[in-house]
């Protein structure tokens, strides 16, 4: 019926983006190989750090495709049925995304980089062979070793990713089957699976954010961190959904998606931006107020060395959606949605940058052509996977118990 085929122009854009990414990667590797002894460590951190940033950012978006789809299933909501295929297509990036992250973790385990300070086995040895004190021994990190040790870390990472992928596959498979068979039995299976997935995801997404991101600043901890990362991924994914829907609509597809669906997606974008800003501020204010050395170092590092980037990122991600998406008509206006969408998508990429870089490059950080190039490359890879998934099935589901209701969706 309604089949998406990748237009040549878009394909060229994607290939160009991937090309830029490959060039940047080569540039990064050359930079590492050509670096002098003193600079070597830093160049390595920069290269792998950026792979980790993009790995996390795009994997997070893909994961939120599965998450948001599961939310709609569990709530048995009707409005999102016409745009469901977009969530599905975005979620199909989890395979590649998980692979990128696993490569970064594996490289860390092989000590090719030092993003995860705690992976250094020296930190755990209190006495050297000759019986003297090990100057590198880190009592705090050693105290965390019951949780933060490599076997357990790997077990968690593989379990979480495996289960996320397993559910993503199931949702996708059922959705394609439903197109053929119709009926409600598949839908009830989806509702049940979505509920199980959400419970699993609710716990594990927190632990994943400690493992994969918070452990970069190994000494530091924040109980709110998981929520903060989760909401950042969520808003990025909402923007991606909206941009993809608007893109498909501009190509004359998805005509079943009316203004009300776009308005609802716009509302989500607005609301989740606030959730993210709220969590940013909650984490910041409590730490700022209590001013405990072991907590406040995290923000001191960011405010001292990344001042403009840090506050600018927050200001953009909070103020732009607030001012420009509060108005009802703006949430239905393509121009506003696309402009704000691209701005805050980049804003949240910067947020991921600020999660990783201060703990790995410290005061001597870089933001240049390499960072931008690698980001564009990963964006190209992401788009390649997502558009492929989009073109494999009709862009609007053919059969769903709530399809008819969704086609008549109307809000004011």
């Amino acid at each position, binding site marked *: 019926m309604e089949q998406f085929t990748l237009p040549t122009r878009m394909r060229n854009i994607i290939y160009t983006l991937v090309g830029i990414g490959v060039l940047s990667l080569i540039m990064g590797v050359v930079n590492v190989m050509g670096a002098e002894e003193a600079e070597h460590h830093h160049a390595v951190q920069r290269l792998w750090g950026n792979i980790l940033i993009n790995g996390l950012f795009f994997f997070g978006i893909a994961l939120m495709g599965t998450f948001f789809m599961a939310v709609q299933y569990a709530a048995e909501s009707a409005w999102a049925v016409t745009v469901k295929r977009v969530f599905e297509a975005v979620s199909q990036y989890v395979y590649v995304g998980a692979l990128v992250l696993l490569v970064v973790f594996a490289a860390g385990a092989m000590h090719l980089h030092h993003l995860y300070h705690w992976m250094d086995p020296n930190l755990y040895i209190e006495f050297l062979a000759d019986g003297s004190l090990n100057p590198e021994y880190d009592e705090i990190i050693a105290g965390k070793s019951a949780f933060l040790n490599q076997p357990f870390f790997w077990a968690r990472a593989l379990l979480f990713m495996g289960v996320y992928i397993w559910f993503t596959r199931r949702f996708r498979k059922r959705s394609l089957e439903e197109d053929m068979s119709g009926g409600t039995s598949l839908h009830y299976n989806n509702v049940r699976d979505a509920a199980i997935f959400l419970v699993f995801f609710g716990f594990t997404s927190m632990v994943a954010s400690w493992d994969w991101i918070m452990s970069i600043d190994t000494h530091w901890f924040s109980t709110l961190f998981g929520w903060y990362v989760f909401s950042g991924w969520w808003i990025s994914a909402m923007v991606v959904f909206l941009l993809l829907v608007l893109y498909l609509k501009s190509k004359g597809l998805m005509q079943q998606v009316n203004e009300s669906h776009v308005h609802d997606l716009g509302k989500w974008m607005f609301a989740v931006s606030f959730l993210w800003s709220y969590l940013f*501020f909650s984490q*910041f*204010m409590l730490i700022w*107020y*209590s*001013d405990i050395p072991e907590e406040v170092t995290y923000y001191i590092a960011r405010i001292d060395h990344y001042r403009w980037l840090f506050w600018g990122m927050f200001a953009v991600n909070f103020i732009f959606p607030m001012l420009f998406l509060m*108005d*009802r008509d703006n949430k239905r206006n393509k121009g506003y949605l696309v402009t704000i969408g691209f701005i805050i998508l980049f804003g949240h990429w910067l947020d991921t940058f600020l999660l990783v870089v201060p703990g790995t490059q410290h005061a001597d950080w870089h933001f240049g052509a390499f960072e931008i190039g690698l980001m564009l490359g990963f964006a190209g890879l992401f788009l390649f996977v997502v558009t492929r998934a989009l073109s494999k099935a009709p862009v609007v589901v053919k059969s769903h118990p709530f399809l008819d209701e969704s086609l008549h969706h*109307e809000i*004011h």
Partner: protein
Amino acid sequence: MAGKTIFGMYDDDGTLMTGAAALIDKGLHIKDAYTPFPVHGLDRVLGVKWTRLAQCAFIYGLIGAILALSGFWFFMISDWPMNIGGKPNGVLYENLPAFIPITFEFTVLCAAHGMAITYLLRNWTLPGVKARNPHPRTTDDHFCIEISTEENNNFSEEDINSLLKETGTVEIFERA
């Protein structure tokens, strides 16, 4: 000719919508509609102007934020500088994060209350005010449209009555 108000009662919101649309097509001006629940899309059929309540809410919120911040400035910094947990207390902006939650709450409080009170005043539906709906059943299971003869000078009363009847009203009554 003294102005009269003619009311047409419907027993279904769908009939009300199509009826109102048909009457407007014929050139009639409908003054108002009374329904027991919000009928989606009726505002567009009747051509009701977009409410400015949102702009009011923004202004009330702004007033709330300014009041809260000036309050903080006066109580905590100017009148009697409060030193809590060694936080800087010389200027407002250095203490700002601590004041944000209450400022936020007060903004919401002012916006919400201001909006509710404005709404009640504008519609004059304050407690104790006599209800102005033309028929008690418009709060139950009937829908009513109100047509003023004064606003429809090119239609006679009989015309309006017969046009209303055509749209499937269950009852028509008028008031001077």
